[in-house]
């Protein structure tokens, strides 16, 4: 019986530390996200500018092509943002999720 209790308590304390760590990590994540967003704001602004320019294109086929290009740029930018956030988090050692994310995205873990 004592072994069962010890096992249950060990599992419980591991989950305690995990959730508490994630709760404390959330603020660090937000700070990193804000920092990366401000770093990438210029590129994001360019995308918005391009979107406004698309409205001025008269022909439908040209418009669709331009929109596709912008969509591609936007996805690339978002991917860059996520990888940068993950790398920053990994550097500070605050999130194990970041590590997995960088590996999945084919970055340098």
């Amino acid at each position: 019986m004592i072994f069962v209790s010890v096992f249950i308590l060990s599992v419980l304390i591991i989950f305690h530390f995990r959730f508490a760590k994630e709760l404390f990590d959330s603020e660090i994540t937000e700070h990193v996200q804000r920092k990366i967003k401000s770093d990438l704001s210029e590129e994001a602004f360019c995308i918005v500018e391009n979107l406004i320019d698309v409205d001025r294109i008269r022909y439908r086929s040209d418009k669709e092509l331009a929109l596709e290009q912008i969509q591609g740029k936007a996805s690339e930018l978002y991917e860059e943002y996520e990888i940068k956030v993950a790398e920053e988090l990994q550097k500070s050692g605050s999130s194990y999720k970041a590590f997995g994310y960088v590996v999945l995205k084919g970055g340098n873990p």
Partner: protein
Amino acid sequence: MNLNPELYLLSSTCLVVQIACLLFLIKFYSQQSNSIFITTAVVVVANAMMVVIEPMLFQLAEHYREVAKHAWYIIFTLIDLIAIYALFKFHKLLGIKVSLSAKFVTSAYMAFSCIQILRFCDRLILETNFMQYVYQVSIPFIGVTMTLVILYNTVMSKLKSVDASKEVLG
């Protein structure tokens, strides 16, 4: 094993104060106090569970003393874990910034669990009983401190919302 009426009264009083804080927060709800509201609600639910379960465990101890000893530490650690998980999940789901009171409550529940586990080892594995006094003092102490922190944050959140509305009105 008998229920300590003084300690039980203390934890029940803490629960009443926490419920009053929760009702106060519901009455004067504002966006700014979201994290404090969630923290208070989680603490109220966790504390209510503990207050309800405690006499049940003493009843169980009358018939199955050994089982009750083991169940005591496991159940209270489990309640602490549920509270931490609820705090984490609600903050994440609602995308709320974690307030200082939420961090304090999480730390308090961590401390609760560590004390429970240390006492478990001390009482049932090592059989030394060194922790008996520490356990009897620290658990109510953390509970009272947590209640005071919640009370302070409830009052402060109301004062802050009054200040904010004054600023808006100019």
